[in-house]
C-alpha cells in the first residue's frame, strides 16, 4: 500500500468514525421525541400527578424546576458577573489572580454530587435552611458559577481596548467606563453564559437530591423554605422507584426536560451567533 492509498484510507476511516460519533446524538434526541411526543398534552403539563404518579401530569415538578432555575439565576448572576468583571478589568497579573483562576477551573471540575453534599452540609444543616428551594438554589447557583464566569469574562475581554482608552481619556472613571462602554457591548456574551448556566441548573439532579427535591408533594411550595418536586428528580423517581409506571409517562417527562434544557442551549447559541454577526469591530 503506497502512501497515497494510506492517506485515503486513514482520512476515510476518520470521516466514518466521526460520523458514527455524531449520528447517535441526533438519534438520542429524535428517539426521546418520537416516544414522548404522544404523551404531551395540556393536561400532562398542567395537572398534578395522580394514582401514585402513574397518571395525571407533571405540573408540580415543572413548576419546581422553574422556581429553582430562577433561584439559581438570582444567586449566580450577580456573583458571576462581578467575578468576570474583576478578572477582565481589575485583576493584576499576580499570585492572587492565578489563585482565582485556579479556583474557577477546580469549581468547574467538582462532581455535581459533591456540590450536593456541600449544599446539605452548609445550607440545609449548618445554616438551617432545611431541604428547601433556598438551599437548592444556593447549591445550584454555586454549581453554575464557573460556566457563567468564564463565558462572561470572555465576552468582557473581547470588547476592544480602544473603547476603554477613549472613555478614560474623556474623563470617565474606571467604573463609568465599565458601566457605560464595556458592559453594554459585552451584554450578549454575558447573556450567553447566564443562559448556559441556567440550562445546566435546570437539568441537574445530583445537587438537588439532598437539598430540595421531594419524591412527591400534594401541595405546591408556598415559600422559599419549602421543598419542591423537580423535573430531573421526578424523572429519576418515576423511572426507577415506582413499579408499574407506564413508559409513555416516563418518555413524556424526559421529553419535557430535554426540551427545556435544549431550548436554553439553543437560545444561548442563538444569542452568541447574532452577537457575532452584529459586531462592528
Amino acid at each position: 500500500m503506497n502512501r497515497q492509498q494510506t492517506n485515503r484510507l486513514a482520512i476515510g476511516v476518520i470521516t466514518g468514525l466521526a460520523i458514527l460519533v455524531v449520528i447517535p446524538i441526533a438519534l438520542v434526541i429524535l428517539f426521546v421525541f418520537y416516544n414522548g411526543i404522544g404523551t404531551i398534552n395540556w393536561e400532562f403539563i398542567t395537572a398534578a400527578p395522580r394514582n401514585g404518579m402513574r397518571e395525571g401530569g407533571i405540573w408540580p415538578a415543572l413548576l419546581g424546576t422553574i422556581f429553582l432555575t430562577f433561584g439559581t439565576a438570582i444567586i449566580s448572576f450577580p456573583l458571576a458577573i462581578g467575578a468576570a468583571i474583576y478578572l477582565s478589568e481589575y485583576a493584576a497579573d499576580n499570585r492572587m489572580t492565578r489563585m482565582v483562576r485556579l479556583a474557577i477551573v477546580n469549581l468547574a471540575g467538582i462532581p455535581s454530587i459533591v456540590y450536593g453534599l456541600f449544599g446539605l452540609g452548609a445550607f440545609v444543616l449548618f445554616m438551617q435552611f432545611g431541604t428547601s428551594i433556598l438551599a437548592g438554589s444556593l447549591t445550584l447557583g454555586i454549581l453554575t458559577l464557573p460556566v457563567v464566569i468564564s463565558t462572561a469574562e470572555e465576552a468582557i475581554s473581547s470588547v476592544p481596548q480602544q473603547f476603554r482608552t477613549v472613555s478614560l481619556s474623556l474623563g470617565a472613571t474606571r467604573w463609568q467606563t465599565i458601566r457605560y462602554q464595556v458592559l453594554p457591548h459585552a451584554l450578549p456574551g454575558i447573556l450567553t453564559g447566564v443562559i448556559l448556566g441556567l440550562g445546566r441548573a435546570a437539568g441537574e439532579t445530583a445537587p438537588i437530591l439532598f437539598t430540595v427535591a421531594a419524591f412527591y408533594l400534594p401541595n405546591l411550595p408556598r415559600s422559599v423554605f419549602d421543598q419542591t418536586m423537580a423535573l430531573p428528580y421526578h424523572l429519576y423517581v418515576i423511572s426507577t422507584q415506582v413499579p408499574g409506571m407506564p413508559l409513555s409517562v416516563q418518555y413524556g417527562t424526559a421529553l419535557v426536560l430535554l426540551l427545556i434544557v435544549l431550548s436554553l442551549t439553543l437560545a444561548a447559541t442563538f444569542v452568541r451567533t447574532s452577537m457575532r454577526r452584529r459586531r462592528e469591530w
Partner: protein
Amino acid sequence: MTSKPSLATPSRTAEDAPRLRIGEWIIENLIRLAGLSTIVIIGLIFLFLLREGGPAFLDIPLRQLFGTRWYPIEGIYGLAPLLVGSLLVTVGAVIIAVPLGLITAIYLGEIAPPWQREILKPLIEMLAGIPSIVLGFLGWVALAPLIQNAGAATGLTAFTGAVILAYMSLPTIISISEDALYAVPKEYRDGALAIGATQWQTIWRVVLPAARSGIVIAVMLGIGRAIGETMAVMMVTGNAANIPAFGSGMIFEPVRTMTATIAAEMGEVAQGSLHYNTLFGIGIVLFVITFAINSLAGRIVGTRGARRSGGKL
C-alpha cells in the same frame, strides 16, 4: 489581561464628586469581593466536606476503610468495592471516548468542510447539554435491554455505565482537543504539505505531536468528568457493591461507583451517624481526585503560556 492606565482625578462639579467616589469605591470593592469569593467558595466546600466527612477517617480503622466489604447495615465500611467500581466504569469510558473523541476532533479541525462543521459543532454542544438523568433514563430503558439480549446476565453492568459515560465525556474531549489542534500554527501544516507529505502524514506526524499537551488535558478533563458523574451511572450499573472477579468478564458485572453510593444512600442515613460521615468521606475522596486532575491540567496550560492564546481554559 487588561492594562490599567493610571487615572487622574476626573474634573467634576464640586457637589457630586464625593458621592460619586464613595459609590464607585463601594462598587469596585464589591467586584473585588466577587472575584475573591471563588477562592472562598472552594475553601468552604472543602471545609464542609471535612467537617462532616472527617470523622469517618478517624473513627473507622484504616484496614477496614480500605477493605473489600461495604456493608453499612453491619457497620462495615470498606471503600475498595466503590473505588474499583468507579475505576472500572471510568477506565471503560475513557477507552471508548478518547479515541472516538480525538478522531472526531481531528475530523472537525482538519478534514471537515466549513458547512459540516457548522452543523456538527452545535450538535456536539447539544450533547453536552443533555441532562445526565435523561441519558441515564435512555440507558435504563433502551441500552440495558440491548446488552442483556447480547448475552450478559443482566443489562445493568459496568460496561453499560462506561458506554453512557463515554458519551457524556465526548463533548469535553472533543472541544478541548479541537482547541489544541486549532492552536497548532498553520505554518506547521503548510511546511509539511509543501515537502510532499500527505494530509494523513501531516496530521499524524506534525499536527498531533504539536498538539500533544492539549490532548493530554482533554483526556484528563474527560476522566474528571467521567469519575464524577452520578445519576446516569447510578441508573445503569446495577449498584452492586461487590468487587467483580478479576478477568475479562468483569466489565460485564454489576458494580457500584463512589458517586452512586452517595446518591443512593444519603437519603436513608441518620445525620451524624458513622454511615453519614463515611458518605461525606467518599465526597472528600472525589473532591481530592478531581481537584488533583484539574490543578494538574491547569498547570500544563500554564507552562505552555503565551503560545496558546486562542483556546479556552
